[in-house]
């Protein structure tokens, strides 16, 4: 989305300072700020961005990404539904059933009572997502599973980001021996497939709560983040404004916190979202294999595992937990895509032919 900087089409040499061999990484976001263009005193250049801070520009670009906005709404609705329906900690629930009691079977076979039709609207009924053979309420169980999975996802996202940023920033800023040491360690961890450490850690905290599982799994997911943050720091620390800060007398801490980190925030946020979508898939997979959250506690993964054999008789037991995993992961992915577009100045939107024709007509009419 380069269109905030209008001189771009008139400055074909804008890209010439970029390394032709820079490896494009669709997950890495901002590699090089295009403010170096120095396009001169061009009136059009300043038009679109007048009076906006970087943050405001990013927000504006994000809001233009329709997929991300829709995903944001969906995710918010899901989170509200999941937290309030059966209650969570201090939050009281409005749903009549809980996830561990068995109830009498409402409809033969435990069929879902949720009905959506044009004539009669939405009918929720006693057990909207159906019941299993012994009469558990599937809606309550799915909500509980989603609570657990969301907790693990957010925990992993935050913690792994923190570890990754600390390791990557240290390695990238100080370079030399520190860098070699930290990166060799990262290499070692990367040589171990995520599933393997995940399974081993899962086995370790076997039957543990979402909290401990999230904490343990954060140590699996930080490596990619640390590499990206390191690369970002390596390139940012060579920029002239860092030299300028150093000449101005800034300490290392100040340079890292005040000058480099804010400029790396795009990469960090974008990858944190990608990391979270990977995290929910990892947690559910571990729970599915029986190494994560185990019965009697519930996760979306172990629900699928539990009811997969009943697929031909009671498919709803299988569909709903899977549906929630996909919705959450998909929304997070789309939000990440929107953030990447918003943070990456290289992304330029090529307008559609129709829009261009419309603007041409408007111009001609004037």
């Amino acid at each position, binding site marked *: 989305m380069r*269109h*905030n*900087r*209008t*001189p771009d*089409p*008139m*400055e*074909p*040499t804008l*890209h*010439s300072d970029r390394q*032709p*061999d820079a490896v494009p990484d669709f997950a890495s976001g901002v590699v090089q*700020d295009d*403010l*170096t*263009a*120095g*396009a*001169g*005193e*061009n009136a*059009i*250049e*300043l*038009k*679109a*961005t*007048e*009076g*906006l*801070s*970087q943050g405001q520009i990013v927000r504006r670009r994000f809001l233009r990404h329709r997929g991300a906005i829709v995903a944001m709404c969906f995710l918010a609705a899901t989170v509200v539904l999941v937290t309030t329906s059966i209650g969570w900690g201090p939050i009281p629930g409005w749903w009549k059933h809980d996830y561990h009691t068995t109830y009498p079977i409402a409809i033969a076979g435990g069929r879902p009572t949720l009905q959506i039709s044009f004539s009669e609207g939405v009918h929720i009924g006693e057990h909207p997502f159906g019941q299993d053979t012994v009469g558990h309420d599937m809606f309550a169980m799915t909500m509980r599973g989603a609570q657990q999975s969301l907790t693990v996802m957010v925990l992993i996202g935050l913690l792994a980001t923190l570890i990754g940023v600390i390791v990557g920033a240290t390695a990238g800023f100080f*370079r030399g021996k520190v860098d070699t040491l930290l990166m060799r360690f990262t290499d070692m961890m990367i040589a171990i497939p995520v599933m393997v450490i995940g399974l081993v850690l899962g086995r370790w905290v076997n039957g543990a709560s979402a909290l401990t599982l999230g904490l343990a799994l954060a140590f699996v997911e930080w490596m990619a983040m640390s590499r990206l943050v390191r690369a970002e720091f390596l390139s940012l620390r060579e*920029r*002239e*404004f860092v*030299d*300028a*800060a*150093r*000449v*101005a*007398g*800034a300490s290392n801490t*100040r340079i890292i916190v*005040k*000058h480099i980190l*804010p*400029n790396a925030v795009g990469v960090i946020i974008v990858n944190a979202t990608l990391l979270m979508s990977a995290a929910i898939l990892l947690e559910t997979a571990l729970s599915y294999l029986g190494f994560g959250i185990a019965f009697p506690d519930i996760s979306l993964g172990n629900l699928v595992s539990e009811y997969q054999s009943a697929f031909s008789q009671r498919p709803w037991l299988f569909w709903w937990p899977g549906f929630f995993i996909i919705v959450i992961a998909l929304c997070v992915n789309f939000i990440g895509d929107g953030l990447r577009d918003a943070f990456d100045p290289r992304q330029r939107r*090529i*307008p559609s032919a129709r*829009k*261009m024709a419309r*603007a*041409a007509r*408007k*111009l001609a009419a004037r």
Partner: protein
Amino acid sequence: MNGGRERSVMGASGAAPPAGVGADSGVDSGVASGADSAREPILRVRDLNVDFYVEGEWFPAAIDVNYDVRPGEVLAIVGESGSGKTQSSMALIGLLPSNGRVSGSAQLDGKELVGLRSSELHGIRGAQIAVVFQEPMTALNPVYTIGFQIVETIRAHRSESPKQARERALELLRLVDMPDPETRIDYYPHQLSGGQRQRAMIAQALVLDPKLLIADEPTTALDVTVQAEILGLMRDLRRRIDSGIILITHDMGVVADMADRICVMKDGRIVEAGSARQIFYSPQHPYTKLLLAAVPKLYLEPVDDADRSAPAPSLQSEGAPSAVGANAAADGLTDEPSDAPVLVAQGLTLEYPRRGRTPAFRAVEDFDLVIGAGEVVGLVGESGSGKSTVGRAAVGLLGVHSGSLKVAGCELRGARSADLRRAREGVSIVFQDPGSSLNPRLPIGQSIGEPLLLHRVARGKDLDARVADLLEQVKLPASLRNRYPHELSGGQRQRVGIARALALKPRLLIADEPTSALDVSVQATVLDLFSELQREHQFACLFISHDLAVVEMVASRIAVMSKGHLVEVGGASEILRHPREQYTKELIAAVPVPDPDAQKDRREALARTSTA
């Protein structure tokens, strides 16, 4: 709109030049222009418009552009960035970005180019209209040898065998004076030097004898001495190939060296067109005058002061710092005997330390220089000469490997962070790229105030007042304080950079190519401001630049560097007029001056010395 058309038509029809200027036109750059102007134009551009779709609206990049190009003629399109000079030419061969569109007419030998189907365009590109781009490093595909890329051009248009095509490619490489072409033909672009790459690019462009050659800033990315070689080559080729050439450039020196006719573009319009002599010696449009006045000129012959300031009305104030410098030089640094020199380098050697398996790189060796208080010293050299490295070492961004470097009374060799901190109270730096030297996430007020804050000079309200004062000093409104760098133009950003550098009232300012990223007209105002501030604050300055003319404007003494070594130091006029070292002589001879006649004399003089 009409004005532009009138003028260009005037240019095309060769309206009578002002008396006394066109009188001796017969000797114009070796082209018999009298005969040429009678020839039919090969390219006829009429009412060409280029627009770009941005943010839901069409913005014009070129408006009603008219010009003709005749065979064997060089038409220079001159303008600053954003003037539409490149896009109006790229539109001819359909190479606009996808959000661009073109209307109007451009006829190549009577064939309309605008609105041509892409299959027909393929036949024209490369074969009839060829392009030489600005940056040969990125414009050549890095994974193919230059031979392959030239052969590919031939075989895309003619059914020649690979062997024949290769012979032809070799022939062209010889034509462009590629050294050892039989070997170089199998080199990848990264194995060639910048000048050789541009030669390969030109060979590729000429390989099919195009009717029209578009050269888009062909020498901008090159050092002056290499630029001189490439310009010499192009001048030589033009006589042999009989193509029309469109030369797109912002450099008036290059224009003076090459052009027969000139179109001056501003904001998408051609504001003035005419023969080179018309434009240089009797410009009509105010913008043309302004542009010519803004170009720093190298005064090599001793001339009296009245003559000097006459062609540069807006820069008259520049006379002052030169005078100051001249005084300082004349007095042999004894101007202010109470003050010790602010920079003393003795046997200074600088190395970029070993990183991983990249061995240490010695950038500067055995460098001696003294800068007295309040003195402006220009440091000149080509890329890779180590001049910027010296600047970085002077502010403590690079450690001293051996020798001694005293800045503002502090020895920087082996300096610890406390020493550096003390030294940095007396020295600061203005960087080359104003876009990169300001933190994009900080409002500029914070960037300017950072040195004050960190050296505990001011805080709170006091800091705000100081920042406002600094902004005022660089002639920016104080209200800009809360703006972010991307909201400012290049020139404004560089003013902010200067304000930050002056925050601590330094005794020594390192200016590392402070204007080379700016357009000429902006460069002139920034240099103006710089000189004014220097006069006012009397700080000493190490002014690093590749541009001799800029250095001459500001510096009293000049040091010349090459390949990490100091070549010579001396008073500005002495170095420029009576250089002692061969390298300095070559450097000065290579600079094109924005004056067709003077440039022609220089060229001929150069040819005499090089053959002698």
